[in-house]
Each structure stands twice: as C-alpha cells, then as structure tokens.
C-alpha cells in the first residue's frame, strides 16, 4: 500500500508499468520495485507486510528517488514492446521477459535516446534467443544420428543391468517417517525427520522397491505401489526414443529418454540454466536407470512424501475417513473443498458417483477418484526438472512448496479439463446420439 501511494505520487510517464487504475502492475512490484529498488537483502526491515510510519517514509523516499529511472524504464518497456511487435515475437509475457532488462537499460543509458530502437531490437532478439540452442529441435537433431542412438541404447542396457537387484527393505519405515514429515508441513520451522529421511536414503529405498514389485506399500491393494508412475507391473528399461507428443506421453517411468528431455526443453522457463543438449542426453542415461529416474536423494524423498500425501487426497470431498491423514492432507483437502464449491458456483461440476452414461465427464470424475495418478505424474515432472538443473530440495519448507504447488496444478488441470469437455459438448456437434433403450439408473 505504501508502494501504491508512492507510485501514484510519481506522476505521469509510468503508464506502461501501471494498471488501468494507476496502481503499479503486480509484476512491476514483483519484478522491479521489490527486487531492484527496495532490495530486501540489503534492507530486510522493509520486507514485511506492515511498516511503521518511519519505515514507510523510507520506502516512500526510496521509490521517489527512483522516479527518473522508473520513468526511463517505462519508456524502454514501450520501446521493447514496439520492437517485439515489429519482429513478430509473440512467445512469453513481455513483462516477465523485459521488465528487469528495461530497468538495467534505464540504469545504463537513462531514457531512450538516439539509437535506442536498435538497442531495443537487439535486446528482444537476445531474449528470444536466450535458450542458446537448448530446444526440442536440437534434441531431435542430436538423436537423429543412428550411430549415436545405438551407442546410447547399449549404455542404457548396461546401466539398467547393473542396477542393484537386492529387494529393498525399509519401505514401511520410509512411509511411516513420511507421515511424520507431512504432519510438520505447512507449519513454520524445519523437521529433522525430513533430513533424516534424506540421510537414510529412503527415497532410493522406495525407488528400488518399485523395481521389484513391492506390494501394499500404501496399506492395501489399492492404490498400487507405483501410484501410476508406471503403467506396467514394474518399470522396464527406458528406450532412447525419437519423438514425443504432449497429448500421448506415457507414465513417467515408462518414458523414453527423448520424452523425458522433451518435457524439460518444452517448458521455456530459464532454459539458459540447463546443460547443453549433448550433456543433457548423456546424463539422462544414468538418471533414467537410477531409482525413480532421479539422481538427487532429496528429490526422491519428496516422491515418497508426495506418494504418502497423494493416497490420502479427497478431491471429491467424500469426507470418508482415511487412516493417517496429516496436516498436509488437511491443507490440501480443504483447498479441494474450496475448489469444489467454486466449481459448483461456476456450473462446472462432475458427478461425484460413477455414471456409465457420463462420457468424457465421467472420465474426469474417475481421475478424481484416483487422484494419486495425476498428482504423482505432475510431481515427477517437476522433480525431474529440478534434477536436470541440479536443484535439490534442501529443506522441508521448499519441499512443501513443491508438494503444495503440485496440488494446486492438479486442481487447475481438472478445472481446465472440465471447461474444455463442456465446451466440446456444446460446440462441436458430434455424431448424433441415438436414443437407446431406457434402463434403470
């Protein structure tokens, strides 16, 4: 609010960084004002929700001091958007892509002057090109070489054969500890149980158990031990692969090397942080033969935590008591209840009970009755993305942020799928449905 007042006090010239009401855009605050002007690392006392009058005055002064630079930033942003249109670039959100660059340009050059158009064009091109050849096309090209593919295939065979084949013990201990960790989630402070799971290699234990067809890990026949991470009884050796399509990706542990890296390269965020394509491929050989298809133990432990969480989810709000629900379950299930209420208010429901006439909506409802599959699929992709970037989850707070974020994504996926199923029903008249014989429902 202090930021809002100070911002409005800066006067005209900031339109391209402001919303229609004159307030700064959400991203202006998040990407420019906080990190580049307030700089909480230098001034932690200003990085709180509520400021006393003295601190508020300091924040206000900081923003006012930056007025000329912000005005220049706004003009650079307008210029970059113009250059982007001229170059026909449409990928990505321009605020995300250019805000910080514009602030840098304003710091370096002040307001745009002679030659600014050329600078703007260069920046837009540079940003568009930031992936540095880390693209799906490059991957396709790299794996088009049949000799290389044969070598990779042989390496995969060796790596797969040399996996430890001793049946893993300690899975139930891992699952018990996971419940303890999940009870500490969503609360401030770290849990020593998380660190001890990582130290004890409980993620690797679980991953090896999946190779040997463990039973009843989650307390009963249903859900299966692998929670949909593979469609097979046990995962088989990964292939190299030559193609992929988002719509038909198999279960995570059944994916080819190509498919695993395709997903990583497809998400455009921070591609410049990735290893180069040849390096990505080399490392994926070993990774795909590691427990759970992940190298880092903390990420594997988060798979166990996610599994323990996923088996207690109740997206349909049946309220059926499930044993061993934890604080994390309560947090996620209460979000599902909220979501269900919003979906009812938006007339986007799916029947809570199985309905053989339900068509595509019934398929969505079925997914909600086995929520672990969608959850684990999403979670694995996110953890794999971190593994590829060497980004372990060092403490419980960051692990919970991932677990919770995946729960949110699964919910958003569901809503998007209901929306598109309903749209398909009302838009494209499919083949006429012949009225069939009535029967009891």
């Amino acid at each position, binding site marked *: 609010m202090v930021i809002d007042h100070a911002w409005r006090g800066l006067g005209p010239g900031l339109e391209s960084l402001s919303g229609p009401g004159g307030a700064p*855009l959400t991203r202006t605050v998040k990407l420019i004002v906080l990190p580049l002007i307030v700089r909480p690392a230098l001034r932690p006392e200003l990085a709180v929700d509520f400021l006393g009058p003295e601190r508020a005055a300091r924040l206000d002064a900081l923003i006012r001091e930056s007025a000329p630079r912000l005005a220049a930033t706004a003009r650079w942003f307008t210029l970059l958007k113009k250059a982007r249109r001229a170059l026909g670039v449409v990928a*990505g959100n321009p605020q995300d892509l250019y805000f910080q660059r514009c602030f840098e340009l304003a710091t370096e050059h002040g307001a745009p002057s002679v030659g600014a158009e050329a600078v703007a064009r260069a920046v837009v091109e540079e940003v568009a090109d930031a992936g540095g050849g880390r693209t799906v096309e490059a991957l396709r090209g790299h794996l088009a070489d049949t000799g290389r593919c044969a070598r990779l295939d042989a390496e995969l065979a060796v790596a797969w054969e040399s996996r430890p084949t001793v049946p893993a013990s300690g899975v139930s201990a891992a699952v018990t500890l996971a419940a303890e960790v999940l009870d500490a989630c969503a609360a401030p402070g770290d849990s020593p149980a998380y660190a001890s799971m990582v130290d004890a290699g409980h993620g690797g234990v679980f991953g090896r158990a999946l190779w040997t067809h463990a039973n009843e890990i989650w307390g009963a026949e249903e859900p299966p031990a692998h929670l949909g991470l593979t469609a097979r009884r046990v995962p088989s050796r990964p292939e190299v692969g030559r193609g992929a399509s988002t719509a038909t990706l198999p279960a995570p542990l059944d994916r080819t090397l190509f498919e695993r890296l395709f997903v990583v390269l497809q998400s455009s965020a921070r591609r410049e942080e990735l290893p180069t394509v040849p390096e990505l491929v080399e490392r994926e050989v070993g990774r795909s033969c590691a427990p759970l298809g992940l190298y880092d133990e903390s990420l594997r432990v988060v798979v166990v935590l996610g599994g323990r969480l996923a088996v207690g989810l109740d997206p349909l709000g049946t309220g059926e008591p499930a044993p061993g629900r934890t604080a994390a379950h309560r947090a996620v299930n209460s979000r599902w209840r909220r979501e269900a*209420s919003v979906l009812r208010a938006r007339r986007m429901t799916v*029947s809570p009970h199985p309905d053989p*006439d339900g*068509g595509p909506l019934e398929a969505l409802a079925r997914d909600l009755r086995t929520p672990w599959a969608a959850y684990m699929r999403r979670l694995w992709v996110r953890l794999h993305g971190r593994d590829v970037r060497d980004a372990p989850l060092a403490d419980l707070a960051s692990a919970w942020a991932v677990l919770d974020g995946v729960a949110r994504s699964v919910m958003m996926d569901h809503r998007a799928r209901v929306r598109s199923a*309903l749209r398909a029903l009302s838009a494209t008249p499919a083949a006429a449905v012949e009225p069939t014989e009535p029967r009891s429902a």
Partner: protein
Amino acid sequence: MAGAGTDVRVTRGEDGTIRVAAGPVLGHIEVCDDVAAAGPDFTRSVLDVAGAVLVWPVLGESGLPVAEIHDAGRAQQWLWAVYGERVAAAVHDAAAGEPAGAHVMTETSALAGAAARLGYGHWAARWWPASYPDGIPVLEPDVLGLEFAALTHRCQQLFDDYGDQPDDCVAELIEEHRSALAPLLQWWRATPQPADTARHLDSVLRLIDDAADCAGLDGTALRRLRSALDEGPDHGRTVTPAGPAALFARQVGYALAAGDPLVAGGRVIARGSGTNDWRRYPPGFIDAAEHAVSWTARALGARRQIEVEVVAHVAAPTTGAPLAAEVRVNGSRPLRVPLGRRDDVWTGRADVDLTPDPSAATSAPPRIEVGVLLPGFDPGAGPEARADRDAIRALARRRLAGAAQPVADDVYDGVAGPFLAETLAATATSEDY
C-alpha cells in the same frame, strides 16, 4: 452498494482460513461447506484471487464480498484496496494468531466495485436464465467474454502469478472471444446512444487494447483495434442500419433436427411439469423457464408410456449432447430416459410401470416426478429452489429493463452498470432472439 464504513468481522477458522464478512449475518456458517445456508449454487458469484476466494450474493444487496483467505501473505496485495487498511491489518493479526475475531470498519474502496462486477460477469456467463417463453434473451458470449477481459485487466491487483487463479486469464479471454472485436468496433464507430453506453463501450475497448499490449498479444483484429482507437470513432464513422444487435446476429432459431415422430394414438392418462433444476446440466442446452420440462403419460393397450419434452436453449447444439430425463413413479428408483432433439425440444420416451402406490389410497393417481440432467455432470438433485430461480429471473428482467435506460457513468464501477452484452440483449427485439 456498500462501501465505506461497513462493519466487517475478521475471524480465523480451525483450518487456518481467515474469513472477512460484512456484519453478523452469516455468523459462523461456512459459505463453502454449507450450501443450504448460503442458498443454491446459482445465487452466489465467486472469484478466485491471490490467496483467497471472494463470494458475493447475486440476489439482494451487492456490497462487499465475503473473503475466504487461505494465504494471508498473498492476500495482502489487495486486501487494503478492497476493504481498507484497517481490515488488512486485522487479517495480518489474525494470521499471526490473534485468537478472537475482530470487528473492523471498512474504508472507501475503488477495487471492490470492479471486483464485484467481474464476479457478477462470471456468474452471468454461467447462470443467465435465457428463455424463449420467459422472454429473457441470450447474452452474446463473445461480447461478455471481451468485457471480462477488460474487467480482469482493471482488477489486475487481485491476481498474482502463483498459477492457481484461473480467473486471471486476460490473454485467453481475448484470444477466445476475438471474433467480437470487429463488431464491437463497428458499434463504437456508430456512436451508440445513450451517451453513457458510448463511453462505456469506449472504455471497454481501450482496456482490451491496453490488456492485449500488456500481455504481448498481437494479431489483425488487435492491430485494427489499436489503429481505430488512435484515430477516434469519427474516422470511418458508420451508421448501423438495424441497431447494434444486428451486428452480432448469428444463427439462432431452431435448426430442424430429425427426430422420432410423435407417438400417434394412445390415450393420454396424465400430464404434468417436471423440475427444471439448472444445477444438473451445463448452460446452453436447456431453456431456463420453470415449465421447460413437461411430460405426458399414455396408455397404449396394456402398456404405459411416458414421453418427456424439454424446451431447448435457443443456442443449443442440435446433436451431440447426451442429455437425459430422470423419471420417478411413486418415489421409485429413478428411470433414466435418454433425450434426442426434435425441433425446439429435447424429447424421449420410455415404458413405465404406473401401478398405483400400494401405500396410498386406492384411487390416488400415480405420483410422477421428472427431472432433466446431463449424465456425468449432474451433482445430484438439490433442494427445491423454485423461489430462488424466480428471483434470478426477476433479476435478469430488472437488469434488462435497466440496460435500456440511460444511467450515470459511475454505475460501471460496480455491479449495477449494464454489461455490453446486456445492453445488446435489451435492444434486441423479440424477433432477434
């Protein structure tokens, strides 16, 4: 419209959810969990925002929303702008563990009105009671969609980028509904009357242009919009010959679909109306009128047959929707009857057992209850809600009557101002829909 000086209560629930609600009316009732207390689903509008869900009643006073805050930190970015600084502080304290609820007075709020308007728009897109027999025209979905885009942009402070707010979808809305841009521009050039409509249309188009620019969207329709706004409406001014509704004229009216011929013969033994529970099927398939569902029971020799007819929504697809009727005789297990399309009705029939209820008086006619639903969508029959449906119809009529009148400009800051789609619907004659 409630605004400055409303008394709100800030309370913290057992699960950590913090609720901000005006007055003591709702007390401790959970809006999310207690449907009966909050009224049927179609009587409230909702908005997913950063760290919270906002809920307004659609009927009655549209004031400040009830906020169910699940992440108080994220909600701080908009709480002060919707409810005022004191409420934001009370939420902060509640999140920090202040035990008891607090009463706080709200302050003047610019964002609350726009948020309520956006919430209402989302409601209207799903529950507007379009009906041919009731004379309530359809709202043009693309025009509604573009006005949402403008409003969503106007409300940008409510959203952050955690990816859990599907309502923050300016880019998707503009892409999906861009076909309405050209006719809206034509309408704008024709300088609509009254003047407040012209100003409102102008502000919506400028917001869309700004929103598209912010989101980095591009395309022919958007470039035309940009250059038209730069040049002003006088450039290339046109006169719309047949009123603005003609600009959006689309294939309505009932496409004739082949269906089973009417049952010839048989002796009619009973007729009646069923229940048209809007909650049991998605919008756009069935006319919202109370008596849209009707049934006829016939005797054909020893057979007893029931035929169900459901008036189709004027824009309903002619095929492909596997709607079904649900028939109960004397409270029996429901019999599901698939419906097919014939002219302007969905219809189906089935043999039924009309043996009198043994527990009833011997002469009592069988009790027949008929409902309509979309399998897979149907959340199940809800409590009787006819009075609420009537109230919604009255609301729609009131808004259409209001949209035909000149209004003050400031109504567009809240729910009261007509949406462009409502203005269009109000100007359409009965021939047009």
